[in-house]
């Protein structure tokens, strides 16, 4: 595949600006779509295949997906400093914004409508979380063992409030073992 890049080679400053731009223009998730636009379509620092590869690694490894993409893309483009700048660009502007918004709410805290407004925002933002959850549930295989492990995880962590780490270590190990066995069945020579 021929590459039509780079429009202009990234520097640490433009790298930071690109990630900060993605971070500050995305609300409520869906950031990876914006990243594709910024890095592949607009700045042409990566081709689409490289980006999709970065995306799949970021989703597979633990961590916040967009932060993982930023680190990996930054690293691929400019080595370790690029990874640091990538993470900083994605995290720092939003971190400042979240504290400014919280400060704003503290300032209007005395008004009687403030807690009501916050309640409404909470009700709607929990819907974002539920939607992500429903999408995740739909992607689980319709088989007894995965569905059982999913339910057990929910009950243990959500209702019984057990430690996420222990639940993950035990149920995760069972789940990965079963998936490993199944993967062997599907492709006998894999």
């Amino acid at each position, binding site marked *: 595949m021929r590459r039509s890049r780079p429009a202009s080679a990234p520097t640490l400053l433009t790298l930071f600006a690109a990630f900060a731009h993605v971070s*500050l*223009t995305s*609300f*409520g998730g869906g950031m990876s779509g914006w990243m594709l636009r910024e890095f592949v379509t607009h700045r042409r620092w990566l081709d689409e295949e490289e980006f999709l590869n970065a995306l799949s690694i*970021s989703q597979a490894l*633990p*961590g*916040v*997906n*967009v*932060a993982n993409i930023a680190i990996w893309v930054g690293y691929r483009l400019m080595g370790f400093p690029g990874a640091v700048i990538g993470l900083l660009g*994605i*995290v720092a502007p*939003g*971190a400042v*914004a*979240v*504290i400014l*918004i*919280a400060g704003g709410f503290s300032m209007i805290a005395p008004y009687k409508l403030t*807690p*009501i*407004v*916050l*309640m*409404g*925002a*909470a*009700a*709607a933002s*929990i*819907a*974002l*979380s539920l*939607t*992500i*959850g429903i999408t*995740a*549930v739909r*992607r*689980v*295989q319709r088989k007894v063992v*995965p*569905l059982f492990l*999913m339910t057990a995880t*929910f009950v243990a962590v959500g*209702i019984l*409030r057990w430690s*996420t*780490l222990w*639940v*993950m270590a035990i*149920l*995760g190990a069972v*789940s990965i*073992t079963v*998936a*490993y066995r199944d993967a062997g069945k599907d*492709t006998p020579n*894999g």
Partner: protein
Amino acid sequence: MANRLVELMFALTPLSLATVGGGQSSLPGIQRQVVTIHHWMTSQQFVDAYAISRMSPGPSSLLVTLIGWRVAGSAGAVVATLSIFIPTALLVLTLAGVWSRHRGARWQTALETGLRPIAAGLIIAAGYVLIRGMAGGWPTRLITIVTTGILLKSRVTPLLLLGGGMLLCIAFYELGFIPGK
């Protein structure tokens, strides 16, 4: 103060590595640390912090920045943010190369499909924990259900839905369905 910072770090760092299938999956664990174990916030304050983090641009895990800020000021904000992002950042830098060299290997398929049900269970638990902490009774739950329905059916920008939630909540309050504070 220094003690608080160390507590924040030890509470959040392990959960960084337990973040599977997106930032939402660590939320029940963070809530447990912040509300149940350390009593830094009530469950309702946690829900408020979550709402503020979703009004802000950037990754949703910036909720921890806000928690750190509430617990130990600006140093707390920095420590909490680093605790949630640095461990997995190091993991990505170490493993991403190996991962892309062995694309499609059996152990990768096993990890991806094996973690999927666990992640789904954790994310649904996040929604459940948040709903339990939400104030306002049936009106706010109704807003959550309606908004979820809209999000599943269409591609509305989340900011518009947050604004809609706020307005509906004010309307319910003015109609007397939500008691004032």
